[in-house]
């Protein structure tokens, strides 16, 4: 009986020991799991700590970079605008130079043509062409001064018959005053101007230095020419000087040719 009791106690002790061992193992497992979880938690905390701090820094850096790039963009856009404005200025300047170049070419060609001949009729023809083609006048006359009679008489005209142009006394009326003063005359109203032989729309003295040899009187512009352009005034100035010298030279040349011919006739007569 005692033995049975001992065996029973022993068996129970074994069972208890088994249970205790299992409990110990379970406790060990729990402790390991706990350790693992704590480690995992630390890892996560570490990770979450890193990913929490880093984005703030990164965001700050990125924000700064964006601001810097935005500033650069604004600077570039400003520069582009500036270059565009400069380009527009250059384009406008280019057009101005182009116009100036054309005007100079017109003046050069007009001047070149005026001095290309010593034939009086040709000179008058060239002056006429310049006035029509470069200035755009439709009705005008070239009047020369006869210094003996102090009268101005038409030697060429366009759009009106030469005979229609009245003789003008030096110092009288608009034309006579222009010839005596050597100062150009421009009518105030070009748009509403009505042809008046005594008071032309424009009257330019043809003069060599201060010596007036005649005038150019414009009575009407071509229908498509509404007003004078700045280059027209330059052409008038050119005509005032160059046309006068061209006319004077041609007249002098034809006079000398005529005299030479007369003298040659006398010489031939004397030597025969």
């Amino acid at each position: 009986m005692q033995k049975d009791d001992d065996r029973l106690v022993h068996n129970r002790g074994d069972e208890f020991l088994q249970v205790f061992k299992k409990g110990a193992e379970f406790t060990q497992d729990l402790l390991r799991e706990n350790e693992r979880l704590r480690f995992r938690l630390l890892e996560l905390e570490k990770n979450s700590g890193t990913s929490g701090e880093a984005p703030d820094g990164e965001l700050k850096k990125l924000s700064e970079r964006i601001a810097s790039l935005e500033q650069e963009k604004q600077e570039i856009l400003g520069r582009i605008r500036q270059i565009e404005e400069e380009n527009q200025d250059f384009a406008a300047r280019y057009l101005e130079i182009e116009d100036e170049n054309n005007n100079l070419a017109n003046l050069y060609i007009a001047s070149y043509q005026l001095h290309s001949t010593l034939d009086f009729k040709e000179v008058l023809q060239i002056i006429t062409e310049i006035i029509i083609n470069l200035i755009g006048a439709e009705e005008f006359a070239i009047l020369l001064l006869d210094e003996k009679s102090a009268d101005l008489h038409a030697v060429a005209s366009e759009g009106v018959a030469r005979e229609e142009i009245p003789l003008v006394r030096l110092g009288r009326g608009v034309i006579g005053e222009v010839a005596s003063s050597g100062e150009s005359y421009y009518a105030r109203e070009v748009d509403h101007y009505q042809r008046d032989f005594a008071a032309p729309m424009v009257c330019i003295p043809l003069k060599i230095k201060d010596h007036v040899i005649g005038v150019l009187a414009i009575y009407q512009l071509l229908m498509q020419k509404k007003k004078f352009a700045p280059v027209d005034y330059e052409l008038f100035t050119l005509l005032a000087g160059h046309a006068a010298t061209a006319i004077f030279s041609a007249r002098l040349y034809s006079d000398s040719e005529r005299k030479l011919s007369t003298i040659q006739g006398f010489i031939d007569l004397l030597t025969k």
Partner: protein
Amino acid sequence: MSEYNVLIVEDSPTMRQLIAFALKRIRGVRIVEASDGVDGLKKLSSERFDLILTDINMPIMDGLKLVSLVRNDSNYKSIPIVVITTEGAQEDRERALALGANDYITKPIQPTKILDVAKALLKIS
């Protein structure tokens, strides 16, 4: 070898010079001058032209007659023609265009206008 052959038909040497000056801005242009319509036709028969610029009021043969003859000749009818004249009225323009002119320029001469019209007809950008 010139790229563009242009014929200027104009009785005034001053005008011919002015027109030629404007056209010389075109790279590769070669300019031939004629003093009236008859002279223009003679020059046309001697070589190929890419463009004709003609005055209207000329002795011997005027510009409108020249335009008409050129347009009725199968050898030249495709050559663009520009008429340059003092006549600024709409009916003058229409008459020239009806005869076959491609464009119409009025005086006073503006070199930029001549250049623009010539470039357009020569298809130069």
